[in-house]
């Protein structure tokens, strides 16, 4: 279905982002509302860490090119951490 076209997509985008950062970049799974934290510096740093690793512009935001890469098929091994 079309990406990014409906406001509700932001929630599913955020959910995907949270899962991606948890699975591959060691973001702590602490169950608190990720959406509310997305502008907090630790989460922004995590997003930038991911964008840097994946060769994207380090905006610290869930922009469309970041979303595109996150939706691509990939290996299930984390990118950082143990």
């Amino acid at each position, binding site marked *: 279905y079309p990406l990014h076209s409906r406001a509700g997509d932001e929630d599913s985008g955020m959910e995907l982002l949270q899962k991606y950062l948890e699975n*591959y970049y060691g973001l702590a799974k602490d169950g608190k509302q990720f959406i509310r934290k997305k502008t907090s510096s630790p989460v922004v740093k995590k997003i930038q860490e991911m964008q840097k690793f994946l060769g994207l512009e380090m905006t610290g935001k869930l922009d469309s090119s970041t979303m595109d890469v996150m939706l691509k*098929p*990939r*290996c299930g*091994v984390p990118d*950082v951490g143990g």
Partner: protein
Amino acid sequence: FTTFPGSPKWRKNHITYRIVNYTPDLPKESVDSAIEKALKVWEEVTPLNFSRLSEGEADIMISFAVGEHGDFVPFDGPGTVLAHAYAPGLGINGDAHFDDDEQWTEDTTGTNLFLVAAHELGHSLGLFHSANTEALMYPVYKSSTDLARVRLSQDDVEGIQFLYGPPPASPEVPVVPTTSSSPEPESLMCSPALSFDAVTTLRGEFLFFKDRHFWRKSLRSPEPGFYLISSFWPSLPSSMDAAYEVTNRDTVFIFKGNQFWAVRGHEEQVGYPKSIHTLGLPETVGKIDAAVSDKVKKKTYFFVEDKYWRFDEKKQSMEPGFPRKIAEDFPGVDSKVDAAFAAFGFFYFFSGSSQLEFDPNAKKVTHVLKSNTWFNC
């Protein structure tokens, strides 16, 4: 490139693999040749060589599965996660799993098995993901790859040769994998005279520290891995005095001299080292011999020569009435304690090449063992 933490690698050049089952998407022969081609990619730039087993336990077990498949890392249906693999080692380590909810193909109309296999087998050999977008070890699958022109990037070559060296044909370096100046782990591990600097648990595994190295023992595999301390925790000291884990804080404390450090997994905690006297040990104590933490009673014991102190983890303070004589409260433990750890309701005290299993409830030694009984010698 990066390697897995601790740079685990195969300590031999001849590695076996087995294709445990097959995807219905492709003829068996196509799967066989894709895996063979994927291994050859790494074979060409290292001293490694591979042989296939048709049964039994191979170093690299290759399988296709959907959803939950026994390793608590379930696949996610079609798309996104295509496969995953484990770092070199025994048991599940080294194995590669492919998500059979993908449509595996010989070309790029679906998900190309050779491409993904070459990447996953890079993990099986010890490579972690690379941030180099041209590298085979880059984590995101590129469906637009021209299969005719697939080759390892310079980054991939540097990574795998960091672990195993170049192929024998190159005159500059020796054929065998580069070995650090460390002692041969196997001979030291099973030496009857082996003693430890410190022993601790860490997230269900057991770490036995000796000089600059440690053995990492998991109950899932009979033999421990052998690592440089600095490859996990660069700022920790070698030849440490003591170590213990406070499980409810997911933290291991490491002691040397009058300082101690804290690590969580392989992350060193900031604000350390701290002075051991901040724990409440008197200034007269310059170092400790061993320490062990009882996760049930939430008490930590510090052993110094023939005496010990007890620390209340809930109150975060040393208890009054200490030091006491070790031999009085731990009957049978009457020589200097080198190392100690707690597991399965027992305390294990190490002194030289001996080990005492002590039941803290019955207050008695239940077994006298050799120090390396955990190593399956």
